[in-house]
């Protein structure tokens, strides 16, 4: 239990960012000179007795899930194989950008686990989720414990720039997870490029990530619009096990073989000062990243001989 909740929470992370950038970006107060001083040295120190981070991440809860469900899924169910992990930096910040799929998307957990398992310096990955989930009882409690942070530009910036962490975003957002099986591996629109601007501001590289297998792990055949409207959920999909097996059917993943490919990092400090002000450039880079992931996905699919065996 619980893992699927985390996974479900990836929806529409991008849309939040869009919204935030559209209207409610923290506006500079008029009577305050912008602080140019680097505040990173004033970050709170680590309190060794604490098991919960300032973001609400709990070592204990995360560890239990990691050793049980996630471990099983990673090694035995999805048999994840990983390519190109060297591009993920050892200790600096980086923004991982991935394609997104599956009604209760398992890709985020698997990417995070891949870095924990295979990287030369295992690091935690912070996964952006829609703030929507902060208002849902249960989810609100569990998601932060296992490393999810609400997708707010300020959160992403603090993690990337101030704390030099890895942040995983899905620019497709819910457009990616709600797409039908017939549209598999065809990337949706990459938001409005908010993720590119975030990486530019934080001066960290973008690492594109391609995930193959998640589309077949939980294919969506149709959407039950009426039920969606009645329940107020973001969507109610028809998957091989849902709603056939009841709510537990949302857990039903098919044992597709997962391949995760990390691409070469894209440096974001190559365009001079304040490139995020150039909306055209931000869009171009976002489109480039999308194209890169799309082409690599097609390449990986062309090499794949079996959905189940890889």
């Amino acid at each position, binding site marked *: 239990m619980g893992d699927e909740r985390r996974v479900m929470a990836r929806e529409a992370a991008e849309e939040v960012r869009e919204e935030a950038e559209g209207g409610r970006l*923290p506006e500079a107060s008029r009577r305050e000179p912008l602080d140019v*001083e680097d*505040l990173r040295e004033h970050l709170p120190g680590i309190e060794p007795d604490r098991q919960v981070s300032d973001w609400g991440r709990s070592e204990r809860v995360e560890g239990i899930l990691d050793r049980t469900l996630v471990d099983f899924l990673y090694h035995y169910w999805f048999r994840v194989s990983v390519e190109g992990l060297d591009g993920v930096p050892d200790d600096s910040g980086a923004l991982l950008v991935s394609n997104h799929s599956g009604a209760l998307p398992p890709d985020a957990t698997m990417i995070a686990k891949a870095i924990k398992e295979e990287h030369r310096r295992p690091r935690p990955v912070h996964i952006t989720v829609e703030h929507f989930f902060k208002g849902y009882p249960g989810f609100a409690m569990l998601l*932060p414990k296992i490393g999810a942070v609400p997708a707010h530009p300020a959160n992403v910036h603090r993690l990337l720039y101030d704390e030099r962490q890895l942040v995983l975003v899905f620019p497709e957002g819910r457009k990616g997870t709600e797409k039908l099986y017939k549209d598999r591996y065809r990337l949706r629109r990459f938001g409005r490029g908010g993720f590119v601007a975030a990486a530019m501001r934080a001066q960290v590289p973008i690492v594109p990530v391609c995930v193959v297998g998640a589309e077949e792990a939980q294919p969506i055949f149709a959407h039950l619009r009426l039920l969606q409207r009645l329940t107020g959920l973001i969507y109610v999909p028809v998957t091989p096990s849902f709603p056939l097996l009841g709510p537990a059917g949302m857990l039903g993943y098919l044992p597709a073989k997962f391949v995760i490919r990390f691409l070469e990092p894209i440096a974001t400090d190559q365009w001079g000062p304040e490139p995020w002000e150039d909306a055209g450039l931000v869009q171009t880079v976002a489109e480039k990243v999308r194209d890169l992931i799309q082409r690599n996905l097609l390449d990986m699919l062309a090499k794949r001989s079996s959905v189940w065996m890889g």
Partner: protein
Amino acid sequence: MDSRRILVTGLSTFWGGRLARALERDDAIETIIGVDVHDPSVELDRTEYVRVYNQHALIRRIVVAAEIDTVIDTRLAVDSTVAPPRLAHENNVIGTMNILAACTGPDSPVRKIVMKSSAHYYGCERDDPAFFTEQMSRPHPPRTPIERDIVEAESAVGDFADKHPGVTVCVLRFANTLGPGLRTSHTRLFALPAVPCILGFDPRYQFIHEEDIVGCLEHAARHDLAGVFNAAADGVLALSEVADLLGKPLAPVLPPWGTGLVAAPLRRVGLRFPSELLNQLRYGRGMDNRKLKATGYDYRYTSREAVQQLAKQLRLAPILRDASEPYRYEQEVEEFLRYSPSVRRGER
């Protein structure tokens, strides 16, 4: 600029009194005058207390007569259980406007204003950032009367700062306060046998120890800090962590839906959930405290240590109850001690 002649408004509040006592220790400060409607709640040496309501004409006369260069406003009520909404509004909004009015004018000696505000300025909402910085405005309009008051009071101070570039205006937004000497809605809830929470939510909480509040205000009095500063201790705790530190279980007495409906009857039986606290119990709040730290202030306690201090005090509370005589202000005695020729300095 060095503050030498200081006016503390809200002297009878917990902060006002503690701050005045801290300032008294500094010999470089010539004069400390405290104004309030109620008598001071702590024993003071040389602070002079003037009983006056928030009337700008009267306060202004004091300011001009005493050549006050620094006004520290500790009067803001940030807990809706302390006063009914109308009184709180009167104190928070009208009071602030009056204090500011008392500091204006071409002949005004005031060069610095420090205002004690609250993190309730930011509110608690679903789409909040995990750490509010000072530049951020709240994403939604205020929901509760006390939040509205705080936003309004701050905007009055902001307008004042715009119109008076010669005056250093410092606003400190304090996180939820904990401490042995203090009773707030939070300490009352934490003193219960179990920590009440909303079912399915584990909000993030940031605290500040009472000593740090006085410390921050003193820091602002000693240095020229212009602008808004968050004042919150290092570390953001989950409510479950707080309960752990207190050694108490979490009690999900509030349902996730219809929270307000259930909170109302609970108030009748003694569980006082102020309305501004319900949203905090749901979504929590964290603040970025680095701007104030960058000005050189070192917090004495982290959030976690503040909770541990509270836990200690809660364990001792039943034993120490009524042990110490509370201080009572007696005007004649205070005047005698200050002005009588019979009193020798050493005696004080």
